[in-house]
């Protein structure tokens, strides 16, 4: 039968390997900041850069160049807001601060808080598109019927690769409150109460889900 020596070796192996498994579980979580870091450095996912007024004004202006910037925006289905850019496109000079505005109006019957998530295409322009001021830096609350012009002050870094002549800035506006989002037609992200499941069950069984896999 198994000798004491083997038994000891087995227990040691168990301890080491269990530690490895725990560390790998931690590694799974470590991938989250690592992912954000890689996206920040490379501009993947169109996450935009951010800067302050002083360093933006200190930038070199490349007056010989024009870059076309297009603006677009949409709301998630759970956010009953009118939301659109006031200017659809414009030509900017790299290195010069530019101000544009988006328009939003709450068509819902109650105060709603939303969060806008920006994205820039193409990816390689993302880190060169820097914002000084943006309504996406914080949550925005609109009273019922309230309308608002929301500013974005940005600068296109003059070091932007020469072959990029068009940049598209897009915002997706989400309802931050899950209950309210569900009320206005969006699917909730996290069911909070036990009875919510039943509500959902009806939804799932009565509606034929849309077929739009592609």
């Amino acid at each position, binding site marked *: 039968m198994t000798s004491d020596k083997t038994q000891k070796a087995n227990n040691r*192996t168990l301890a080491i390997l269990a530690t490895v*498994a725990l560390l790998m579980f931690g590694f*799974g979580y470590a*991938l989250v900041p690592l992912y954000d870091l890689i996206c920040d450095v490379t501009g993947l996912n169109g996450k935009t850069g951010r800067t302050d007024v002083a360093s933006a004004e200190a930038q070199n202006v490349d007056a010989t160049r024009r870059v076309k910037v297009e603006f677009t925006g949409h709301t998630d289905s759970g956010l009953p807001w009118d939301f659109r850019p006031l200017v659809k496109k414009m030509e900017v000079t790299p290195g010069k601060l530019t101000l544009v505005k988006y328009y939003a109006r709450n068509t819902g019957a109650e105060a709603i808080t939303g*969060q806008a998530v920006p994205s820039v295409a193409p990816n390689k322009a993302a880190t060169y598109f820097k914002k000084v001021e943006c309504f996406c830096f914080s949550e925005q609350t609109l009273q019922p019927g309230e309308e608002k012009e929301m500013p974005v002050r940005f600068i296109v870094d003059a070091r932007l690769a020469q072959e990029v002549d068009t940049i598209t800035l897009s915002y997706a506006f989400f*309802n931050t409150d899950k209950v309210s989002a569900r009320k206005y037609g969006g699917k909730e992200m996290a*069911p909070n109460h036990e009875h919510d499941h039943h509500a959902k*069950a009806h939804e799932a069984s009565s509606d034929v*889900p849309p077929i739009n896999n592609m």
Partner: protein
Amino acid sequence: MSAHDSHPTGLSRWLFTTNHKDIGTLYLWFSFTMFLVGGAMAMIIRAELWQPGLQLVEPHFFNQMTTVHALVMVFGAVMPAFTGLANWQLPLMIGAPDMALPRLNNWSFWLLPFAATLLVLSLFMPGGGPAAGWTLYPPLTVQGGMGMDFTILAVHILGMSSILGSINIIATILNMRAPGMTLMKMPLFVWTWLITAFLLLASIPVLAGAVTMLLTDRHFGTHFFDAAGGGDPVMFQHIFWFFGHPEVYILVLPAFGVFSQIIPTFARKPLFGYTSMVFATATIAFLSFIVWAHHMYTVGMPMAGELFFMYSTMLIAVPTGVKIFNWMATMWRGSMTFETPMLYAIAGVFLFAVGGVTGLMLSITPADFQYHDTYFVVAHFHYTIFAGSVLALMGAAYYWIPKWTGHMYNETLGKTHFWLTMIGFNLTFFPQHFLGLAGMPRRIPDYALQFTEFNQWSSVGAFILGAAQLLWLYILIKTVKGGEKATDKVWEGAEGLEWTVPSPAPYHTFSTPPQVR
């Protein structure tokens, strides 16, 4: 401790057993049950796809079938089946009296039925089971009813079982080898399992992390994958496939080990290139951790990323090719006979190579944009997982069952099972290559009219394949109950310690370790 065959009988024998052979048997029957459950779901899928339009099941239920079929087959059938083989065979092959951690072994197994119950129960929850595909991509999986929570917890428990099982396997191989059984004398099945166990240990905890994030996103207000809260759904795909790609080698490396046992036996020649086989296995294992994003070429990666993942993926063909050529060289000028296990091994190698070639096609980034999420992918991974892993499992069952039961299986029935499986499998999945190339998307209950004929071939094939497995069940039960007495060596060309013990293998073997020269 005596070497007598005394042990509790009835239910308590199986509940409390710490014997590696009992636990191996439990694993194998459990996985066979799940194989039939997952197979039944595949039959529903193929029945619905018999003709275009919606006839048998609702689309939402169809989506649950594709999702749960995959989860059941991967986590419930193939992985536990190989763990069952490991339990039965590893101690016998390295001359150990049992697994290193027998009580942990009992627990690893008994986690499984509970996990499987949770997973299957999810289908009966309000809102149904998971329907977002086995890859569990958000945002769909942060929506949905509590069936999704059942699934997440089932994946947790299945993963726990796999981690404990792999710790046990590593401890057994590293600490329990008979005197003289050096690492480079170990049979290749032992080697592939050692490497697989390390893959499991490194990748399953990452999956556990990913589904835990899903769970906390669903219920505890975190925003890992919620864009509104600053998270990113694409990040899930990266974390999932960091687990998911090693996972496919977890499913197939032990199968390579099985091929490497069976082919030399029936070619009556030692395995060609033993050392290169070991290193090829280790190379595949290493590469599996740096190719994950080839599952997600279409999410929008920079050119450098696409190129890196394309080239690293293609690189895997090199060690895999080494293995295939080694098996061919083993057979070359051997005195081959074609008993059922050998048929399965040859077919497995050949059809796995077909899956490997379509894998190379898929690795080419620009081509993948056409193939992505089509039936071409479905055909590809069934040629690797069914032809690689499941055919190896069938071959392994025929190869070792005389040692387990002391009875020979019926050769005619075994060969019938083989040919029915071959016809059924190829008829099911070969036309799916064409469907995919023509643009039929996967995971959709309906399709365009022009795909009807190939889908009908595929459905007929699936029904043959399904029926053939009932024959397998009959053969297995018949062999357990009786049959021609097996000799200790069983096969003329068999080499290795497991063939030195009597057939059936007594309850306790190698209580005194054998001396390996």
